[in-house]
C-alpha cells in the first residue's frame, strides 16, 4: 500500500476525498436529482408513483396555487436580512474595533443562543411577545397600548423571530470582515482630512442610517407612519454622530464581502424556514416552507411538494451563482465561519 501510494502520488488527494465526497454524492446530489424526478410523478403513496414528463403540470399547479406563499417568503426573508444587517453591523463593528480583551467573550455571547434548542428559543419568543407577556404586559398596564394590541400571530412576530434566530449568521461574517480592515487605512483617511465630523461624512451617514432606520420603522410600525418618520429622524441623528467620512469611504467598503456573505447566510435559511411562521404566525403568515412541510409530511402529496421545493432550490441556486460570480465560492465559505 505504501509503495503503491509512493509510485502513484496523484492518487493521494482522491483517496482522501473519496469517502466524504461519495457521501455527499449519495446523500446530497442524488436525492436532489431524485426530488427533480419526483416532481414529475403522479399517483399516491398507497398505489405507487409513475413518472411522466406530462406531469410538468405539478409545477404550474404549485406556482399558480402558492405564488403568495413564495412572495411572502421572499418578503419576510428579505426584511429579516435587512434587519439582521442593521442590528449586526454596529455589533460586529464594536466587537472588532472596541472589543479589546473582551473580544472573544463577546463573540461567544453572540453564538451562545445556539447552545439552546432552536425550537425552544422560538417558543420563548411566544412567551416574550405574548398578548400579556413580558414585553406587552407592562406597556398595556401603563395604558400606553390598547388592550387588543398584539404582536404574536402577526407578520411582525414572524419577521422578528427569523431576525433573532439568524442574527449570528450575519454577525460572524461581518465581524470577520470588519476585523480584517487595517485600522491604519482609517487613520490615513483621517490624516487626509476625512474627519469624523466633515459634513460629507455626516450627511452621508445621516442619510444611510436614516434610510435604514426608516425601513426598520416601516417594517415594525407600518400602521403608524409617524413612528417610521421618527425612526428615520433618530436614525439620521445617530448616523450623523457615528458614521464618519472615513467609515463611509474606507471601513464600510472593505467590509462589504462580509456583508454579502452574511446576507446570503441569513437569507437562505430564512427563506426556507417554517418554524417561526408556525409558532409565531397565523394562517395568513404561512411561508413556502410551511406548505412544503405540510404537503410532504401530512398530505403525502410528494409530486407537488417536490415541484415546490425544487423551485425553491433552483431559485436559490441562481441567487448563489450570481453571488459566487461576484465573490468566489472560496470567499463565501471561508468568511462565513469563525
Amino acid at each position: 500500500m505504501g509503495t503503491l501510494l509512493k509510485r502513484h502520488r496523484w492518487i493521494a488527494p482522491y483517496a482522501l476525498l473519496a469517502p466524504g465526497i461519495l457521501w455527499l454524492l449519495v446523500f446530497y446530489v442524488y436525492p436532489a436529482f431524485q426530488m427533480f424526478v419526483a416532481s414529475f410523478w403522479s399517483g399516491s403513496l398507497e398505489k405507487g408513483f409513475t413518472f411522466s414528463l406530462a406531469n410538468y403540470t405539478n409545477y404550474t399547479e404549485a406556482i399558480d396555487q402558492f405564488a403568495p406563499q413564495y412572495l411572502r417568503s421572499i418578503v419576510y426573508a428579505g426584511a429579516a436580512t435587512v434587519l439582521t444587517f442593521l442590528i449586526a453591523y454596529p455589533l460586529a463593528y464594536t466587537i472588532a474595533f472596541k472589543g479589546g480583551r473582551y473580544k472573544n467573550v463577546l463573540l461567544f455571547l453572540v453564538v451562545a443562543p445556539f447552545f439552546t434548542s432552536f425550537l425552544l428559543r422560538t417558543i420563548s419568543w411566544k412567551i416574550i411577545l405574548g398578548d400579556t407577556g413580558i414585553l406587552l404586559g407592562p406597556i398595556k398596564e401603563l395604558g400606553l397600548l390598547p388592550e387588543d394590541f398584539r404582536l404574536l400571530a402577526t407578520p411582525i412576530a414572524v419577521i422578528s423571530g427569523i431576525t433573532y434566530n439568524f442574527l449570528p449568521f450575519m454577525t460572524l461574517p461581518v465581524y470577520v470582515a470588519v476585523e480584517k480592515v487595517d485600522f491604519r487605512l482609517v487613520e490615513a483617511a483621517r490624516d487626509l482630512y476625512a474627519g469624523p465630523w466633515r459634513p460629507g461624512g455626516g450627511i452621508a451617514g445621516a442619510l444611510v442610517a436614516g434610510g435604514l432606520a426608516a425601513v426598520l420603522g416601516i417594517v415594525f410600525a407600518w400602521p403608524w407612519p409617524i413612528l417610521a418618520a421618527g425612526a428615520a429622524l433618530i436614525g439620521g441623528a445617530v448616523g450623523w454622530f457615528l458614521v464618519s467620512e472615513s467609515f463611509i469611504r474606507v471601513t464600510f467598503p472593505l467590509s462589504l464581502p462580509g456583508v454579502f456573505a452574511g446576507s446570503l447566510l441569513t437569507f437562505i435559511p430564512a427563506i426556507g424556514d417554517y418554524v417561526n411562521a408556525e409558532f409565531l404566525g397565523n394562517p395568513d403568515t404561512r411561508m413556502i416552507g410551511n406548505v412544503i412541510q405540510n404537503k410532504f409530511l401530512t398530505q403525502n402529496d410528494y409530486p407537488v411538494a417536490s415541484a415546490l421545493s425544487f423551485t425553491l432550490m433552483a431559485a436559490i441556486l441562481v441567487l448563489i451563482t450570481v453571488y459566487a460570480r461576484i465573490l468566489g465560492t472560496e470567499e463565501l465559505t471561508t468568511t462565513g465561519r469563525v
Partner: protein
Amino acid sequence: MAPVDGAVAAPGAGRASARRRPGGAAVGRLARLADRYLLLVYTGLAVIYLLLPVAVIILFSFNDPAGKSNFVWQGFTLKYWLNPLGVAGLGDAVWLSLALAFLSTIIATILGTLVALALVRYSFRGRGAANSLIFLPMATPEIVLGASLLTMFVSIGSPPFFPLNFFTILLAHIMFNISYVVVTVRARLAGFPRHLEEAAMDLFANEWQTFWKVTFPLILPGIIAAALLAFSLSIDDFVITNFTAGKTQTFPMFIYAKARIGIPVQVNVIGTLIFVIAVGSVAVTTLAQRRSRSG
C-alpha cells in the same frame, strides 16, 4: 476626535465663539460622548436581546404551571429539576439525540477532516468541483435537504417504501455535518506551518510518523472545534430530522410534538442542562488551548 472649534481658546474668547455658533460645543461634547459610549451601550443591549430567550428558557424551567402549557409564570419550584426525565418518552428522545449526535459527529469529523486535508494539501484536477460540492449543502435550505432525502427514501422499493428510522436520520446528519467540518478544519489548515513537516521529514520521519507526530497535533484544535460544531448542529437539528425520522423521536422532535398540547417543564430543564454543558465544554476547551499555547 470631535472638532474642538474655538472652545480651547482663552475662556472669554471661548464664550464668545460659543455665542457665535450656538450648540457647536454642545454638539461636539455629545459627539464625543456618543463616540465613547453609544456603541458600547448598544452592544450591551444587543447581547441582552440575544440572550433574552435563553434566560426565559432557564427561568421557565423553575416554573410551576397550573395547566399543561408552560407560558405564564405561576411560581417557583424545583420539582422538575429533581425529576428531569419524568415525562413519558422524554428520556428515550434525549438518549436517541445523544447517540445520534455522537455517531454523526465521529463519522462526519473523520470524513470531513480527510476532505479538508486533500483540499488544502494538494492541487489536483477537480478541486474546484469538490469545493463547490462542499459548499452547496450549506447553501441549501434545510427544508430542501430534508425533502430531497425523503423523496429518495420513498423512491427506494415499492410501497410501503424504505423504512424511516434512526439509521436514516444518521445518514442525513452525517451528510449536513461533513461540509461544516471541512470548512472548520480547512480554516485551521490554511495557516499551517509547512516547514515543521519538512523539518520532520529531514529528520528521517516517514510520512506516517510526520502526520501523527507533527501534522495531527497541530490541526487537532481545528478538529475539536469542528467536532463541537457538528455535535451541536446534530443534537439541535429539527427540520432535516423531521423529514427523515418517520416515527422516531429525537429531542427536538419531542419538543415539536409536544408544542401543540403544551410543553412539559422538564423540556426546559433538559434544554438548560444542554446549554450549561455546552457552554462549559467550550469554556474548558478554550482555557485548555490558551494554556497549551502559553505553556
